């Protein structure tokens, strides 16, 4: 989050570099940053003669340079934004694409135009490249941007920043999160601000006329991802609530989730349970589990909690049953849903 705040602060002070490269997976903030620049240059206007939006997949470097070198029209500054340019990608990838396009020799030649521009940028133009693709930091083009302008990586926010962002969002809409609601939201949606923003929008609309957003409402409005649903199934099995587990499975199948993906996810969860149980049993600190098993901390936390509902024996038995289920379904001796239903019922019935 710091990089974003710093960027905005320097914008407020009027410190503007001639060239920017915004890259990284946090799409929402990247777009917000571009919007802030636009707002700074052309306050209150959506379209402006001096604002140029270029699709980097269609436009070549000469084209971009030409537009950047155009003088502003009745204004002090011009803003040129290039979306999804391909020339910051690593050479290998870019090369491959060019071979496909049948112009393999054109690459380096084309880039020189940009390099020259970066060394001697037009004073009245602010040129912004923005891309969600990974960039190659060893490329001359990247280094040139760093030297003459600024390259900002937009990384995903950490959990506490996300919570703060959500709280702020809720405040702006006149809402408040009940205890646990923001966590539920983060758990179901994940760290992408873009998705969180969309879900927030839905939540705000859903809770029109009330102040507090409860966890139950979050669960009602926000569809959980596959992993989250599988957690819910295994949770229900752990708590011996066969009905809930089956309902969740039916829901997933109704959404046309491929059966074997479901099965693989269920098997994975039981494998994780066994691994985590084993590690905890041998005295491994909970904090080390994500690194040891190479899983997301959230998954590790969730799994450790689930562990308590299963004995080692029951987990091993479940694993064995899953193996048999997998085989019998794949060899056509059973159909997927009945087989899975029997498996879950057995698990809930056992001990």
């Amino acid at each position, binding site marked *: 989050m710091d990089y974003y705040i710093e960027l905005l602060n320097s914008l407020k002070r009027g410190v503007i570099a001639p060239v920017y490269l915004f890259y990284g997976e946090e*799409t929402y903030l990247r777009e917000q940053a571009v919007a802030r620049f636009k707002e700074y240059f052309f306050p209150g206007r959506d379209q402006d003669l001096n604002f140029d*939006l270029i*699709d980097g997949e269609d436009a070549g470097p000469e084209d971009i340079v030409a537009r950047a070198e155009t003088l502003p029209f009745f204004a002090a500054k011009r803003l040129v934004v290039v*979306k999804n340019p391909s020339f910051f990608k690593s050479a290998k990838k870019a090369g491959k694409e060019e071979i496909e396009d049948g112009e393999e020799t054109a690459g380096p030649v084309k880039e020189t135009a940009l390099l020259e521009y970066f060394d001697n940028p037009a004073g009245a133009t602010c040129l912004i490249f923005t891309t969600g693709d990974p960039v190659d930091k060893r490329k001359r083009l990247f280094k040139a941007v760093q030297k003459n302008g600024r390259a900002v990586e937009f990384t995903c926010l950490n959990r506490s920043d996300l919570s703060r962002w959500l709280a702020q969002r809720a405040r702006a809409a006149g809402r408040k999160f009940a205890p646990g609601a923001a966590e539920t939201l983060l758990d179901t949606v994940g760290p*992408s601000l*873009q*998705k969180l923003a*969309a879900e927030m*929008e*839905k939540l*705000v*609309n*859903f809770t*029109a*006329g009330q102040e507090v957003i409860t966890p139950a409402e979050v669960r*009602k*409005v926000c*569809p959980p991802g*596959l992993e989250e649903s599988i957690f819910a199934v295994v949770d229900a099995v752990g708590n*011996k*609530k*066969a*009905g*809930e587990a*089956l*309902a969740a499975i*039916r*829901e997933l199948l*109704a*959404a*046309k*989730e*491929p059966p074997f993906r479901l099965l693989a996810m269920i098997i994975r969860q039981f494998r994780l349970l066994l691994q985590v149980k084993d590690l905890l049993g041998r005295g491994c600190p909970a904090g080390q589990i994500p690194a040891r098993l190479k899983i997301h901390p959230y998954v590790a936390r969730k799994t450790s909690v689930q562990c308590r509902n299963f004995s080692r024996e029951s987990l091993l038995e479940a694993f064995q049953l899953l193996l048999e289920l997998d085989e019998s379904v794949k060899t*056509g*001796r*059973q*159909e997927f849903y*009945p*087989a899975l*239903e*029997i498996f879950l*019922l*057995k698990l*809930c*019935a056992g001990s």
Partner: protein
Amino acid sequence: MTYLALYREWRPRTFGEIIGQEHITRTLKNAVESGRTGHAYLFCGTRGTGKTTTAKVLAKALNCAGREGPEPCNRCESCKSINEGLSVDVIEIDAASNRGIDEIRDLREKIKFAPTMGNSRVYIIDEVHMLTNEAFNALLKTLEEPPRHAVLILATTEPHKVPLTILSRCQRFDFRRILPADMIKRLKEVAAGAGLEVEEEALRLIARAAEGGLRDALSILDQGAAFGGMKITAGDVHNILGTVRIDALNRMAGHLAGRETGPALRLVAELTGEGKDLRLFAREMAGYLRALLLEKISPHAAAEEAWGEPAQVAGMAAKFSKEGLVRAVEIMAEAEQNMKWSAMPAIVLELALVRACSAGGLSDTESLSARLAAVEEKLNSLAGVEVKTPAKPAAAPDRKHQEAPRPREQGLAIEQTGPQDNEISLEKVRQAWFDLMDIMRRERLPLYHNYAKAQPLALKGRSLTVGFPASDVLGREMAERADNKKYLEGLLGRLLQGKWQITFKNYQDKTEPTEQEPAARDAVVEVKRRFGGEEIILDDEEQGTLF
């Protein structure tokens, strides 16, 4: 006016009429009212849950001139033209048949134009997951920079086929499957409106068969109306769906619980007589048994399955033991699969029912299978003798057969002696005798020949009297030698547990320890002597089922 299918005639025209999707309609209504609608929506859910309907209502609400609150008026020009599908501002695209990049390019060209009548141009793209990759990319550009007046509503049954880049640009709404209770309510409304009379049970059946899709439910209702006139009974629905009445399932479950094999088989005959598809029956039976199991494990969780009155389901579940139900479910599920490949599915089903009937008593089936294994084993050795292959090579492959089931037989013996330790019947010893001879043949062949004519005569606790024919005095004397006697006692102990004492005796052929038909017995004894076979004594009931 031409006939409109029920699901079209009764398609909801306002948010309020859409059932079972409160989390969506409430959100959208509030968004419309506050003017905070998004530019891109993704509606996903199973068929018949209201995706397209909601999309159309939203389109109307956005463009309605006479809107009061969030609901469209359905009276103004705009609403009417949308209802009739004539509006130029609301464009429905079926992505399943317009899936290429050209169609999407066309959309991008035209989406720029300002709306003619209302405030927004709404594009409803149905089955959006069918678009090609290139088309998705083109669509993404539009989603990234939508014109102010444009609203894109993407609808799909398979959201996991839509690229993440698209997903993250849309407000995603997941349509839930409609709960049977909600669906029954709606069906009642529609039936009343269309002047149909529908039995309660029929409604429940339709709700279950529709699996949460209201359009399916209404189609079945429509068929029912065509089939049964203005009054629709449960029987009509069963006829349409080809399913079996719940009472047949209930009766069958009752037979299984009561372990009444005969009535269960008669019920199958009855169903066959009615021309029901037996595989479908097996499938439903398996489903019903699973519902019972679910009820058994977590009561009242199965409510949404609508398998009939909850109390009835609970009552039936109570008749089974948990393990018995698990077995029965497995047997039925397996039978259903096997029926697919069988030329005579009826037999598979009947056998499965016979097995399921005895599923409660595990020991019965296990002992039966153990004894069947013994028969097979003997048959194998018998075959070996008949072709007169030299004894040793023939015995070698046999040994595997013979040795494999032994632990089971021992286990069986434990099972039988365990609870009633002192009551080993002569019958049991006689059965074990052949195993004993078998072992002896392998371990001490000379002794085997010596004992060939001997047989257990009487039993008192664990003292066994073994008889030799009157002519075979030598055999008795050989047997009485201390080491031989000890070996035999040990062998008995191995097979039947406990410490045994044996006395030997010569008996007159006439006093042979047999039942009423001496002639038949003689023949059997003779056969056994020649072939070394085993005689399995069956009681009457089992004779009935085996032969």
